[in-house]
C-alpha cells in the first residue's frame, strides 16, 4: 500500500458497518439508562460525583442525569444534546425524547440488518413523523377561549408533569402553586420573575407561594426592620473604600497629623458618597458588595435600610422586579431609575430571617419557598417544579392540549400504521418500524410500574381502534383507563417537540457511516 498514514497518531477511524454499530450501541445504552425514570412510577437515580466531596444528587430528571454523565460515544452525545435542547425549549419531556430516539434507532438497527438502505429508512421516518404530527393536530383540544376550562387544563398538565416526580404525593398542592405562579406571569415565558428559595426543614407540604420577592439577607444594624412605600436603589458599588487602584500609589507625609488628615479625607469621601446616595430620596439601599461599618452607621442615622453583600443573581432579579436599575455611580440622581415596592419587612422561615419585598412594581413577580427534609429533596423538588413551570408557561402561549398516559403515542401509532399500509415500497417497513417505536413508550411506562406491558398495550391498541377513544394507561390502578376522566393531560408543544427532535436525532445518527476520532490533544501535565 502506498498510503501509510492519513491521520495522526492515536486518531482512529471506524467505517461502514462498524461505525453504524457503534452509534447504535451507544445511543441504545443511553436510552436504557434513562428509560427506567419514565412515567409516574419511574425510578430515581443517584448521581455520585467522582469529583471532590463526592456530592450526591438524587434525581428523576432525564436532562439532569444525562447532563452529568461521562460520555465518550459520539452518538450518545447527540442524544444528550437533544435532551438539553428539549430542556431549554420546553422544559419537560427530556426523558421521553431520548427514549423515543433510542427506540427509533433500535428499530432502524433491525431494518439495516435486513438490508434496507439507511436513506430509505430516513425518508420513511420523515413521512411517518409528518403523519404522526398531523394525527396529533387533529386531536388537540384548545380551550383558549374559556378561561375557566383553560385553568383546569393547566392544573391537569401540572399534575401530570409532577406525578412522575418527587412531588407526586403533594401534586395537588404544587400544581396549584405552579399554576398560580404562571398565571401571574400573564403570558410571558420569563421564568426569572419566579424565584425559588429552598429552605431545609419542615416538609414539602409547607412550601408556599408568596407574592413579591424574598432576599436571603440580613438588614444592617440599627436600621428600620420594616418600611412601607419603599424606594429602593439597587447598586453595585464599593462601600468599603474607594481604593486608588493604581499599582504602587502611595502618599508620603512628614507628620502624624497629616496621616490623620488623609484618613479624615477618606472618611469624608465615603460620607459624600453616602450623602449622594441618600440624595436619591430612597429609603432602602441594596448593594452587591460589602457595606462597611462606617457607611452602615451613616445609613442607619438617615433611617435607610441598607442591605449588603446581596448575590449577583439576587440584585439583578431585585432590580427586575422592583423596576429599578442597577446603579454604580451616584452623581446624577435624575438618571437613575429607582425601584418601588409597598412594603419591606423581615420575615422568618424556619430558623432563618429573610427580607421580604411585597407589592413590587412588576406584578408578575412571585416567590416560591420550598421546604423539605433535606437538600436532596429540595434540589429535586426545585428541578421538578422548574419543569412544571416551564411546561405551564409554554402552554399559556400555545394553548393546545392533549391527553396523556400513552394516549398520544397510541393515536400516532394508529395513524402511522394506516400510512404504512397505504405506502408502497420498502419505505413502508420503516413507517411500520416508526409506529413500533411509538408504542414502546406506553410499554416502558407499564414496565416501570411493574405491570404486564404486553397485555396492557394490546388492550390499549384494541381500545384505540374505536374512533374518538380516550384510552391510556392508568398506572395507579394498573389497567386501561379513560384519560379524560382521570384528568391526565399533556401540552401539545411538548409532545410535538419530543416527536420532531427525536426523529431528527435518529435521522442524524442513521446517516453516519464513518466515525473519525481525532487524536487527543497532548497534555503535558498528564503524567
Amino acid at each position, binding site marked *: 500500500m502506498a498510503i501509510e498514514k492519513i491521520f495522526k497518531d492515536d486518531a482512529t477511524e471506524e467505517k461502514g458497518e462498524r461505525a453504524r454499530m457503534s452509534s447504535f450501541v451507544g445511543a441504545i445504552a443511553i436510552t*436504557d439508562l434513562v428509560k427506567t425514570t419514565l412515567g*409516574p412510577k419511574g*425510578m430515581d437515580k443517584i448521581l455520585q460525583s467522582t469529583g471532590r466531596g463526592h456530592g450526591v444528587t438524587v434525581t428523576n430528571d432525564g436532562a439532569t442525569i444525562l447532563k452529568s454523565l461521562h460520555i465518550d460515544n459520539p452518538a450518545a452525545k447527540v442524544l444528550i444534546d437533544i435532551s438539553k435542547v428539549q430542556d431549554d425549549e420546553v422544559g419537560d419531556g427530556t426523558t421521553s425524547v431520548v427514549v423515543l430516539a433510542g427506540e427509533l434507532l433500535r428499530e432502524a438497527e433491525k431494518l439495516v440488518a435486513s438490508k434496507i438502505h439507511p436513506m430509505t429508512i430516513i425518508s420513511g421516518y420523515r413521512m411517518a413523523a409528518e403523519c404522526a404530527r398531523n394525527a396529533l393536530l387533529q386531536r388537540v383540544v384548545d380551550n383558549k377561549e374559556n378561561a375557566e376550562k383553560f385553568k383546569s387544563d393547566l392544573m391537569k398538565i401540572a399534575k401530570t408533569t409532577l406525578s412522575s416526580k418527587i412531588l407526586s404525593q403533594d401534586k395537588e398542592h404544587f400544581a396549584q402553586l405552579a399554576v398560580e405562579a404562571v398565571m401571574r406571569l400573564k403570558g410571558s415565558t420569563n421564568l426569572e420573575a419566579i424565584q425559588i428559595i429552598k429552605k431545609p426543614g419542615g416538609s414539602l407540604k409547607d412550601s408556599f407561594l408568596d407574592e413579591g420577592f424574598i432576599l436571603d439577607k440580613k438588614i444592617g444594624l440599627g436600621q428600620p426592620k420594616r418600611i412601607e412605600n419603599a424606594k429602593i436603589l439597587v447598586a453595585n458599588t464599593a462601600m468599603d473604600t474607594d*481604593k486608588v487602584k493604581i499599582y504602587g500609589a502611595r502618599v508620603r507625609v512628614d507628620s502624624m497629623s497629616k496621616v490623620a488628615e488623609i484618613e479624615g479625607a*477618606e472618611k469624608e469621601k465615603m460620607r459624600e458618597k453616602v450623602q449622594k446616595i441618600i440624595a436619591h430620596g430612597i429609603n432602602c439601599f441594596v448593594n452587591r458588595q460589602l457595606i462597611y461599618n*462606617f457607611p452602615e452607621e451613616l445609613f442607619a442615622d438617615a433611617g435607610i435600610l441598607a442591605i449588603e453583600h446581596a448575590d449577583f443573581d439576587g440584585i439583578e432579579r431585585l432590580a427586575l422586579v422592583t423596576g429599578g436599575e442597577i446603579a454604580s455611580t451616584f452623581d446624577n440622581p435624575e438618571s437613575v431609575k429607582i425601584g418601588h415596592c409597598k412594603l419591606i419587612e423581615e420575615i422568618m422561615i424556619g430558623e432563618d430571617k429573610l427580607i421580604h419585598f411585597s407589592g413590587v412594581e412588576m406584578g408578575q413577580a412571585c416567590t416560591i419557598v420550598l421546604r423539605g427534609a433535606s437538600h436532596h429533596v429540595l434540589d429535586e423538588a426545585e428541578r421538578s417544579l422548574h419543569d412544571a413551570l416551564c411546561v405551564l408557561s409554554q402552554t399559556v402561549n400555545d394553548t393546545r392540549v392533549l391527553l396523556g398516559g400513552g394516549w398520544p403515542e397510541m393515536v400516532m401509532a394508529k395513524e402511522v400504521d394506516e400510512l404504512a399500509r397505504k405506502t408502497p415500497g420498502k419505505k413502508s417497513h420503516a413507517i411500520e418500524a416508526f409506529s413500533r417505536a411509538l408504542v414502546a413508550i406506553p410499554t416502558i411506562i407499564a414496565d416501570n410500574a411493574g405491570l404486564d406491558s404486553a397485555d396492557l398495550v394490546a388492550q390499549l391498541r384494541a381500545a384505540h381502534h374505536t374512533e374518538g377513544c380516550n384510552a391510556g394507561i392508568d398506572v395507579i390502578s394498573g389497567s386501561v383507563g379513560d384519560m379524560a376522566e382521570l384528568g391526565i393531560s399533556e401540552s401539545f408543544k411538548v409532545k410535538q417537540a419530543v416527536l420532531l427532535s427525536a426523529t431528527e436525532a435518529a435521522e442524524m445518527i442513521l446517516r453516519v457511516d464513518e466515525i473519525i476520532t481525532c487524536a487527543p490533544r497532548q497534555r503535558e501535565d498528564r503524567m
Partner: protein
Amino acid sequence: MAAVTAAQPRSSKTESYVDNKRKEDIRQANIIAARSVADAVRTSLGPKGMDKMISTANGEVIITNDGATILNKMEVLQPAAKMLVELSKSQDAAAGDGTTTVVVVAGALLKQCLSLLSHGIHPTVISDSLHKASTKAVDVLTAMAVPLELSDRESLIKSASTSLNSKVVSQYSTLLAPLAVDSVLSVVDPEKPDMVDLRDIKIVKKHGGTVDDTQLIKGLVFDKKASHAAGGPTRMENAKIAVIQFQISPPKTDIEQSIVVSDYSQMDRILKEERNYILGMIKKIKATGCNVLLIQKSILRDAVTDLSLHYLAKAKIMVIKDVERDDIEFITKTLNCLPIANIEHFRAEKLGHAELVEEVSIGDAKIVKVTGIKDMGRTTTVLVRGSNQLVIDEAERSLHDALCVVRCLVSKRFLIAGGGAPEIELSRQLGAWSKVLHGMEGYCVKSFAEALEVIPYTLAENAGLNPIAIVTELRNRHAQGEINAGINVRKGQITNILEENVVQPLLVSTSAITLATECVRMILKIDDIVNVR
C-alpha cells in the same frame, strides 16, 4: 447500561438488554448501607443509651450521645448512608431533638421494606403506602397529644428533662431543664408568640468547675478579660457602655502611606502628634460619660495600642477589645444601644446602660459580666461550666437539644407521652387500620406498623431489659386501652408514663415519623447509582 462509568464506558455499552438483577442489587445495597448507619446509632437511644467516642481525623476526641453529632462526624461515603446522615440533620433543624429516633425509625422501615421487596411488591407501591401510613400516623399522634399552656412551667420543665435524661449530663437535668425553660421563655417576643430564635440565646462555655455551676445570666457575658495593660478599671458600676467599630490607635489610611522623617526634631513631633491624636479621641469619648468600651476586632489595624490603653485607663474607662463582628448584633440587641462606627458619631444617646460591669475570675480564667442592663433586649446568656472540654461540649449539645424541645413546645403547644408509648400506640392503631385497607396497601401499612415497634424494643434493649417481654406487655396494655402506658426505664417495668413525667413535644414525634418516611421513600425509588463528573 447500568454502570456507565468513567472507567469502562466502552465495554459497558455493548449490553443492550435490560438487566433487572443488577437493579435489585443496587436497591439492596443501598438499604443495607443505610441500615448499618442506623444500627450504629441505635444503642445511643433512650435514657440508658450508651455514648459513642469519636476520634476525628485531626485527632480530636468527641464523646456524645447526640445522634446528629455522631452521624455528622462519621464521614460516610455510600450515597444512601449519606442520606440518613442528612435525615438526622434535618430533624435537628426541624425539631432539634429526636435525631437518633429518626434514624432508628428509618432503619427499621428499611428493614421492613427489604422483606416487602423480596415478596415482589413494586417499590412505588411500597412508597405510596408508606406515605399514606405516615399521614395517618401524624393524625393518630395529634389525637393523642395533650394541649399545653406556656404558663405551665412544670410541664415545660418535664419535657426538657425527658430530653436531657438520655444525655451524658442526665444527673444535672434538675438544674439544666428549668434553665432551658427560663431562657427560652425570656426570649419569646410577645408580639410573635410562636417564634423563638435560638440565636437570641448565647451559650458561653468555660472550663473549670462542674456542670452544677452552669448558670443563666440576665445580661451579657464575654469570654474575654478586660484589658489590664495599664491598670485600667475592671469593675464599673452604673456603666455607660459604648460598642465601637473604629479603632483607638494612630491613624491609618486605606491608601498606602509612609511618614518621611528627615530630622531628629521631627521624630519628637510625630510622637507628640500621635499622643495628641489619641488623647483627642479619648476626650471625646469621655465627654459623653462613657465608661465601658467594647471594641470590635479589626484585621486592618490594631484595635488599641499600649498608648491608648494607658490613656483610657487614666480616664477610668474599662476596655474590652476584640469583639467579633458577628457578635455585635447580639450585643447591641441586648444592651439596647447602637454601634458607633466613627468617633464623630460618638454621642451619649448611642450608649447602653448597665448597673454593673465587672471582671470575674472563674477557675483560672476571667470573664466579663454585664448585669442589670437598662431596657434589656430579649436575649439571654447561659454560662456552661464543666470539668473538661468533652463534658462542656456535650453539655452544650444537650442544652441545645433541651432548648429546641422547649422551642418546639412554644411553636406547637402540644405534649405527648414519651417512653415508647406513642410508638406502640401508633403501631397498634395502624395495625388495626391496615386490616380495612385493600390489597398491597394493607400489607405495607402493616409492615410500617411493625417497624415502629423498634423504638420501644430498642429502649428496652438499651436499658438491659428483656425487649420481647417488655414490648409484648406494652402491646397488651395498649390493647386494653391504656394509651399512655410506656416503658419506665428506671423501674424496669411498664407504667403510665404521663404520671412519671416523661413527656416530649408533639412536634418531635411527628417530624421524626414524616422525615423518616420521606427519606425511606427516596431510598426506595432509587434503582441505580451513576458516577458522574
